[in-house]
């Protein structure tokens, strides 16, 4: 079974983001970039499926500028077999990302497509579901367990009230939640080997997808910051403040 994994290059989750003074966006100059953490979980899940003998080939795809090849190489070092880079310096919104991925799905015909549930920059939580809709596939979103069983896959999903398990016909789309697995680190020999794995570059035009954005960002501002309050000396003082000063209990 072929598995396709989509990975996104985003600002590293440890970086404290700063809004640009002209309010046009977030300052990404000289900022550490990394693979979106949910995409790392997606790669790990695919590699585990391969180790179990369920997956036979893992293809990893990323959409973005030239530098996104770093994240593809990381996925190859973690165990993916080959990469597809859809190169663009333009802004790619979720619907357009889903259309590009749909074009890749049409060509590659994977049985399972694994994506992160959300990318930690735009926090959209859309691309996987949109891809599933465009490809006519079922979706197991926010997955904490994935069990392939013949031509079906059982996905346990993290939902507001607890956990829900659904059964999906293959081919299907799965988006990862935090508890699905704990991603491994790439070993040095595997990082070296990954440099020789095939990586194919395409353009959005090759895939016939129009990237015209439907949403325009008018401005990006820093959130209102909270000021640190006071330190209280005892639990008694705390309860007194909550009752008589803040009046919240």
């Amino acid at each position, binding site marked *: 079974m072929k598995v396709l994994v989509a990975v996104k290059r985003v600002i590293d989750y440890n970086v404290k983001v700063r809004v640009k003074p002209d309010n046009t966006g977030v300052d990404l100059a000289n900022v550490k970039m990394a693979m979106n953490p949910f995409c790392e979980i997606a790669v790990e899940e695919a590699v585990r499926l391969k180790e179990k003998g369920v997956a036979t080939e893992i293809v990893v795809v990323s959409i973005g500028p030239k530098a996104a090849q770093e994240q593809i190489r990381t996925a190859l070092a973690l165990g993916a077999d080959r990469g597809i880079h859809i190169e663009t310096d333009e802004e790619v919104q979720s*619907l357009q990302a889903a259309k590009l991925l749909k074009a890749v799905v049409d060509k590659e015909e994977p049985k399972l497509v694994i994506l992160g549930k959300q990318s930690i920059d735009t926090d959209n939580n859309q691309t996987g579901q949109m891809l599933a809709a465009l490809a006519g596939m079922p979706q197991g979103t926010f997955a904490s367990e994935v069990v392939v069983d013949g031509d079906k896959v059982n996905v346990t999903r993290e939902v507001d009230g*607890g956990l829900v398990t659904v059964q*999906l016909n293959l081919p299907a789309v799965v988006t990862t939640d935090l*508890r699905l697995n704990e991603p491994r680190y790439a070993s040095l020999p595997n990082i070296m080997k990954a440099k020789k794995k095939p990586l194919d570059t395409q353009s959005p035009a090759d895939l016939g997808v129009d990237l015209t954005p439907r949403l325009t960002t008018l401005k990006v501002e820093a*959130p209102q910051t*909270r000021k640190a309050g006071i330190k209280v000396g005892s639990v008694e003082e*705390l309860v007194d403040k*909550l009752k008589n000063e803040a009046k919240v*209990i």
Partner: protein
Amino acid sequence: MSILVFAEHDNSTLKSATLNVVGAAKAIGGDIHVLVAGQNVGGVAEKAAQIDGVSKVLVADNAAYGHQLGENLALLVAEVGKGYSHILANAGTTGKDFMPRVAALLDVAQISDIMRVESADTFVRPIYAGNAIATVKSSDGIKVITVRGTGFDPVAGEGGSAAVESIDAAHDAGISSFVEAKMAESDRPELTAASIVISGGRGMQNGENFHMLEKVADLLGAAVGASRAAVDAGFVPNDMQVGQTGKIVAPNLYIAVGISGAIQHLAGMSDSKVIVAINKDEEAPIFQVADYGLVADLFEAVPQLEAELKKVL
């Protein structure tokens, strides 16, 4: 303008988050209809008809929608939604699951997690875990939107008298099915609706110790939450996670116990009115956002808090 609001429910009760979504619809302005899709949802539809400001309730009562499968809901909502200028749902796990699918079927963008309405086509939403706030304008004919409940005041759940109309669109995509649900049982208020939340982090050390927080919660009528570290360590179930990738809460009072205050956690609670932090490390970043900080060992402070509350409440 006409706005379709997707009602969130469990087939028997209407979730209060729906009232916040109607609040967002009011901020956009226009005729507001509510869609109730589920199985045996007559009671929910009646409740929805009483929501203030709603002119019509559409009911799709069919086994295909009983488990809120995204594949089936998306077909229904995309069909019904074609006639509207806006389609709105709560940004909970149900809305986040099927709404992008609706958007793709309609070939429009989705605007996720809006916290403010600027105009009928311009909305404000958090990005980068709330460390930046973006104002975005949509050029699509139909705006598909998920709403962050904490950004909008709920409308009244009573007093309205909308017409109830049933629609017999039965969409079963036939590609997915429900297997089982393991829902957390709790008599405490829902995290996202509670006016007081007390959360525990890695500092709690194990699940047993969360009982200390539960005792305080029960005195205050509070919900209990957790940091990701506490969930990952298996102390408590996933539905208790507060943060960028968990639940977003904005109660009157948020008490963080043994939580360091990572940006991903702050993203889920920093809109709370009053924040209390109990942590033994006086350098913990949580103190930078706390209105009242107590530097103390939680294993002493929490039982004291319980005793003190018993005295004054």
